[in-house]
């Protein structure tokens, strides 16, 4: 969590400095607890994970490297996307984490398919699939079709929805009409759970139970965590449409502070230790950033410019 927050603070700085960051920046400030609570249950190499845009904490816990993050943002040709896609559109499909596309909800079907194939091949075991998205994502046809199909196929899929009250500038009452978003689970024939997304402890409990059930062969589960987005939709946005009252409310509290207090209370780490982690992470991040800043971007003259993996089918004239 600390790492996620620190890393994203760095990203925000880089964005504002107007430096070499190519494209937009989307942060998950306020969501670290909820994201981490799920991420900590997943195992890279076993599970499949389709993160969306505000899951830096979960990604790190799943095993994404800091270098991968900055390489993608900076468009380094050494990154997992080789500068062909950027910012949050990053992943390593063969390591269980596909790179999202911008169309929200479309990863539900993909993670479902990964689980389907493993089961067909007899290699599913106790692996689970996890997909995250915001409450706006649940409005899409892709979400609906994907979750429905996963339910019909009874696959161990966990759909973790973050209801951060605003899809960009659109409040909940313009996004869905049901009283509680989690009630949709009934319609799909899956189990649904809701949790206070600002509370690390509560989120950990919910996710641990859900993942355990999934590993035991349960069908899809829908989890809705409520919290407030503590940043703009992207770094270009100042979210002035979020009313102060909401910001001041309990939902608007910073999950980092809550977690901090919780950790102090239980004596699991002292403030000094936490500060130590933070300082350590800052160093790691700075090191990564300075390394990546030195790396080359893509050379358009050296690119293969081939969209098909079958080299023989690519017509010569279409190559650089």
């Amino acid at each position: 969590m600390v790492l996620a927050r620190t890393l994203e603070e760095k990203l925000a700085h880089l964005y504002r400095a107007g430096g070499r960051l190519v494209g937009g920046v989307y942060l998950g400030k306020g969501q670290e607890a909820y994201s981490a609570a799920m991420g900590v249950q997943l195992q890279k190499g076993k599970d499949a994970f389709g993160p969306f845009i505000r899951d830096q904490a979960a990604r790190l816990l799943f095993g994404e490297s800091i270098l991968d993050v900055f390489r993608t943002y900076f468009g380094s040709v050494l990154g997992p996307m080789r500068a062909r896609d950027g910012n949050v559109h990053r992943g390593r499909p063969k390591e269980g984490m596909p790179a999202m596309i911008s169309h929200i909800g479309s990863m539900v079907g993909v993670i479902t398919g990964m689980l389907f194939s493993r089961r067909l091949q007899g290699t599913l075991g106790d692996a689970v699939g996890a997909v995250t998205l915001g409450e706006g994502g649940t409005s899409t046809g892709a979400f609906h079709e994907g979750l429905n199909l996963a339910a019909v196929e009874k696959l161990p899929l966990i759909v973790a929805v973050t209801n951060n009250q605003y899809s960009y500038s659109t409040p909940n009452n313009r996004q869905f009409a049901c009283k509680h978003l989690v009630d949709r689970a009934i319609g799909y024939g899956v189990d649904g759970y809701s949790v206070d997304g600002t509370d690390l402890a509560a989120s950990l409990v919910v996710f641990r139970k859900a993942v355990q059930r999934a590993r035991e062969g349960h069908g899809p589960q829908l989890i809705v965590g409520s919290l407030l987005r503590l940043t703009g939709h992207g770094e270009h946005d100042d979210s002035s449409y979020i009313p102060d009252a909401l910001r001041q409310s309990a939902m608007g509290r910073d999950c980092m502070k809550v977690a901090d207090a919780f950790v102090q209370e239980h004596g699991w780490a002292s403030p000094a230790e936490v500060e130590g982690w933070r300082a350590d992470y800052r160093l790691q991040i700075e090191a990564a950033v300075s390394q990546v800043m030195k790396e080359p971007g893509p050379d358009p003259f050296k690119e293969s410019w081939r969209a098909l993996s079958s080299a023989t089918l690519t017509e010569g004239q279409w190559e650089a």
Partner: protein
Amino acid sequence: MPTIPILMPQLGESIAEATMVRVLALPGTIVEANQDIFEVETNKATMGIIAPAAGVMGQVHAQVGSSYAVGANLATFEVSHEDYLVLGFGETKPETGPTQVAASNGGSKDGVHFAVNDADTIYQRQPTVEPVVGGLPVPAGAAGASYISPRMRARMAELGLNAADLAGVAGTGAGGRVTVEDFEQFLRSLEQHRMTPASPMRMAVADAMRRSCTRPLATVGASVVLDPMLAHRKRANPKPGPALYAIRALAIALSENTAMAGRLVGTRIVHPQAIDIGFAVEVDDGVLVPTLREVDKTPLATIVDRYNKLVDQARNRRLPKDSSRPGIATVTNFGTFGIVWATPIPLPEQNLVLGLGAGTKSPVWSDEVNQFIPVTMAELTLSFDHRILDGGGAGRLLARVGQLLQQPEKL
């Protein structure tokens, strides 16, 4: 007082520009409304530009002799406040300079979803451009007898043929055009005829004549009395060929008016540097044209030997490689073949060719002795490039040549 620009107006359909000829109102001059202030020349006429209102001429930017496009700013003109508004200059004009869309970093209220962070992007709003100059003419129909398809063109290029060679081919395509099938059939049918190779000389002459005929050529003719020349020739030793008399006469006539031998290249007339005249010599399967240099400066007697030598060399295909400038006109004495008149074709690099026909004894009425007397008459024909010379000029040139030929001893 406010000032307005004086812009080059649209002076007629398809006029794109005009040349400043005269500034009628100098800077500082008080001018009345609708008074002529400039005189400009288009390719159609000379026209005046008038003042749009009463005022005082300010700075004149245009220069006499230079060409300006429609809409160009020619001068600054001071007008009254009322006229300034009446003429429509009162509103603030839209900004047309470069405006920068700053990379929308850091929380701008109207931030675009996909903010471009790349500070290299500079957006420049260009003023809308109205096409002022006319474009290419649009062909009316890409079919019909003269249409040559890309494949035809490629095939013709391959075989070294040009449109003139296809004149005899029957076309079965739309509008009578020659299709590639017709063309290939034509080539195949040729195989059934007896064919002999065309010599390089033949090909050279063919090419030269084809190129020459891309110009508008015309011919004028006049009769000339040959007796004085024939009498002079009888007495002369060595004997100049009849063509040589014509060469000298033409040279003198041209030296009196070199523009007639000028060449039109684009929009300029290239004047001859020297009066060099060529003459046609028939050789095996073709024609060669040796050149005599500066004939206007060389009296007849002094060039006979040189002429004969050139004729000989030409006949033997031993003409020296003459890398100096080409001739400016040619004389051809086809009278030796019995031809009475003809329409010779000038060489591609020349404007003029003078032909001398065979002489015939003809009865001509003489006022002096009040009866018909026998006179040796011949036709002089002058073919010329009508772009540079008109009938009048050609006629006068011929008359002068004929006149000079009446006094051969002066040549």
